[in-house]
């Protein structure tokens, strides 16, 4: 079978650890790596993200700290309620690495490619925050790769301010 198309150079751009207390872990990373604690990012519910968990609308929210370690995004994510793959992960495994991510320019197309390989979408949503013109800034997509590939793969897409108005 033809490999999944649309991943460019197949460069992993992010590692995410799901935690039960983002503030506590962020402080520890800050101390041990000598890096400032970034501004916390709290995502919105369905009205803003249109997030879907296994196809159903969800109010899933998260508290997120994000750094760049070299070129790789490093994310600490604390689920804040609403059904989500994040909460499922935390409940089942406790604080630990949840996903790695690819950057893409066509989430829907690449998600279809993953589905063709037997890895359907589990959760998907827009980023919280908007361009001045009201458009969404980007979206995320989690694929059901954990059982086959040992971890969840995520697609991250940043929209062009002039191209995507929702």
């Amino acid at each position, binding site marked *: 079978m033809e490999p999944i198309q649309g991943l460019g150079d197949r460069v992993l751009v992010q590692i995410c650890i799901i935690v039960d207390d983002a503030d506590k872990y962020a402080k520890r990373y800050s101390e041990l790596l000598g890096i400032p604690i970034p501004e916390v990012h709290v995502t919105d519910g369905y009205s803003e993200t249109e997030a879907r968990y296994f196809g159903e609308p969800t109010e899933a929210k998260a508290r997120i700290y994000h750094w760049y*370690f070299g070129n790789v995004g490093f994310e600490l994510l604390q689920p804040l309620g609403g059904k989500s793959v994040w909460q499922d992960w935390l409940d089942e495994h406790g604080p*630990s690495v949840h996903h790695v991510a690819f950057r893409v320019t066509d989430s829907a197309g690449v998600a279809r490619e993953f589905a063709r390989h037997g890895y359907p979408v589990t959760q998907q949503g827009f980023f919280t925050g908007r361009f001045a013109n009201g458009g969404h800034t980007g979206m995320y997509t989690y694929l059901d790769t954990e059982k086959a590939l040992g971890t969840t793969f995520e697609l991250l897409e940043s929209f062009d301010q002039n191209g995507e108005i929702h």
Partner: protein
Amino acid sequence: MSTPVLKPEMLCQVGLIVRDVEATARKYAAAFGFAVPPIIQTPGFDNARTTLGGEPSEATARLAFFQTGQLVVELIEPDEKPSVWREFLEKNGEGVHHIAFRVGDTKATEALLAEQGIKTLQQGLFVDGSGLYTYVDSVPQLGVMIELLENFPKDRVGSA
């Protein structure tokens, strides 16, 4: 305020524990269009100088690597002997076991980590003897195991 111990930009690897390294490597190759990588068998104590909790260990693993930009994905299939790899598999099943940072001086880094309550769990030489890996007990504080990777200067290769 404690002394920083790790350099963030030295993040270089994400390591996954799997049950069957060949099967998982083939799935990565098929999905992402990589060539199926060679499977690398790590040696026993005589060559790897593996220690677990400071004690010599014969634990080995079978490894496969994929380069993806700054990050190398390492797939690790542990053998049955006690190791940080085996313990993870038995406790968590398959999953991301560690992230690795390059360091210049493993001993100095271990000493700084120890001051922070993070002790060394397992240590050993690279398969070709060209460097040293060190797994530390960072899960309680950082939510993931940290691995330190040190490449020896070329003139020390084989003499460690």
